[in-house]
């Protein structure tokens, strides 16, 4: 390795290949048994119309949704960790996902979701931006990540209570079931149409985060020194708030709340990219996407009466990982 040229390329190439393999594997699963050759043929636009319908219009969008949601959360987590200089920052932990989810549930409750396909992503993103903006405002006042995470706990609790209120007042059992499904987090039965409505926001969010990535490296030095080396701090904060707001909002609009993947993926990636927040962004997105595709395969392989929800499984695995990462921290100065 030449000095000053530690590349993220091997990690990126490996993650891309693994992601493609996982997406293909996800397309093999479903109620109709189908061999790999038939699935591959259908994906390549050959094979019978029935196969195409099943593989391209039912299985592929579900797998792609899982990947997109993971990518959005992975990149958001990595960016928030860079901005707040703490490995425990993540849209879920900071309450951003919960507020986005409140927006989405509100859209369901008031029936906006039935009126327009844009209502759901818009409401979720508005919630995500409100949550991220509040956290960023709080970050102006305190350098303590603990305080920020506590504010996130408060945000989550408030959003949870408000969602419970909406469920409490639900006019009929159908809208109640809709909302519960949302809160548990799932990518089952997603179509290309769902993806299409969330994709523009997701892409805009990711693009914003990637344009802001060099500033995340500078923040390694702390805000004061980062300003000193030429970082426009206010602009950096705004970009990360907007980017994570759009990406997380789009993810929540697609799948509801999926927690912790935004912590776990960057944590694994960081040592591979010399702990540089900028270089961790893309591999974190790929790895989080891969993790969710694999988790969604797992959800379908576990023989349970009703299918497990992806969000439930993600939290069951992710929360202990979060606790473990938190217990590894020995710093006294935050």
């Amino acid at each position, binding site marked *: 390795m030449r*000095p000053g040229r530690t590349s993220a390329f091997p990690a990126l190439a490996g993650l891309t290949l693994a992601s493609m393999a996982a997406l293909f594997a996800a397309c093999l699963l479903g109620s109709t048994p189908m061999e790999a050759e038939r699935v591959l043929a259908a994906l390549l636009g050959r094979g019978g119309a029935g196969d195409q319908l099943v593989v391209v219009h039912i299985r592929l969008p579900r797998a792609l949704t899982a990947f997109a949601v993971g990518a959005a959360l992975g990149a958001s987590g990595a960016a928030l960790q860079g901005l707040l*200089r*703490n490995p425990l920052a993540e849209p879920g932990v900071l309450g951003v996902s919960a507020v986005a989810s409140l927006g989405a549930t509100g859209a369901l409750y008031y029936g906006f979701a039935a009126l327009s396909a844009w209502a759901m992503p818009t409401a979720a993103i508005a919630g995500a931006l409100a949550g991220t903006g509040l956290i960023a405002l709080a970050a102006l006042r305190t350098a303590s990540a603990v305080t920020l995470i506590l504010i996130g706990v408060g945000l989550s609790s408030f959003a949870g209570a408000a969602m419970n209120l909406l469920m409490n007042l639900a006019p009929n059992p159908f809208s109640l079931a809709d909302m519960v499904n949302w809160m548990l987090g799932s990518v089952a039965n997603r179509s290309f149409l769902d993806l299409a409505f969330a994709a523009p926001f997701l892409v805009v969010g990711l693009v914003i985060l990637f344009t802001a990535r060099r500033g995340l490296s500078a923040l390694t030095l702390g805000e*004061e020194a*980062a300003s000193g080396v030429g970082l426009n701090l206010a602009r950096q904060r705004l970009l990360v708030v907007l980017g994570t707001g759009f990406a997380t909002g789009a993810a929540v609009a697609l799948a509801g709340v999926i927690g912790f993947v935004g912590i776990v993926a960057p944590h694994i990636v960081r040592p591979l990219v010399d702990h540089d927040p900028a270089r961790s962004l893309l591999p974190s997105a790929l790895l989080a996407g891969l993790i969710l595709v694999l988790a969604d395969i797992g959800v379908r392989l576990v023989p349970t009466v009703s299918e497990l929800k992806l969000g439930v499984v993600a939290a069951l695995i992710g929360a202990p990982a979060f606790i473990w990462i938190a217990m590894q921290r020995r710093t006294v100065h935050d």
Partner: protein
Amino acid sequence: MTFSQTGSGLQVSGLTLEAGGTVLVEDASFSLRAGELVALLGPNGAGKTTLLRGAIGLAARSAGQARIDGRDTAEMPPRWRARLLAYLPQNRPLAWPNPVRDVVALGRFSHGAALGRLRGADRDAVERALAACDLDELAGRSTATLSGGELARVHCARAFAAEAPLLIADEPVAELDPYHQFRVMDLIRAFVDAGGGALVVLHDVMLARRYSTRLIWMKDGRIVADGPPAETLTATRLAEIYGVRGRVEGARVEIEGPL
């Protein structure tokens, strides 16, 4: 070390900074030119850090100006300002256990350098800064494994890598053992000898006497004296500024105790 020059250096005039109705710095004026190593001295709470932050344009001022080559630092785009003036703040946290070379490379942020893909001038500047601070051997080490003295050199190298003509360092030798205090001051003096201009906050009067071409004395938010050590460093001044009893005989300074 190589860097571009500024014609006039940093010119600060009539700087006043307030916070919550309290005046922290009042009507402060000073200059910093190439070839000068200026020590900013004063007791805790005198307003030294506030003055520096105001001069750099990082803290909001209620009056006054700070110009480099005629342009006010508060109105310059941050990246432009960073190419003229490197800043080593008092608190120097490192959020992640990055390799030393990457931390030093952050000094090139204003030149558009991205970690992991340093090229041309950026790579050369980083290598020069690493060499100047004797960090070649440590370049690949994680900063989490370094001692306080080694870290201090890393921060100096980070500041030098910008190759800005001016350097402002807030207590660069705090918490260092005597050997490393000399070491860091030697690095700053080398920067000045190469044509840079440095303003350094120090608490050690003997160190300031030994290294500085000029001393700026601050108390209660005001600059009370500004001049060469031989003229401004006196027993009376030590009593006035710090409330200590001291003896000054030529280049020898001895602080005997509180008044």
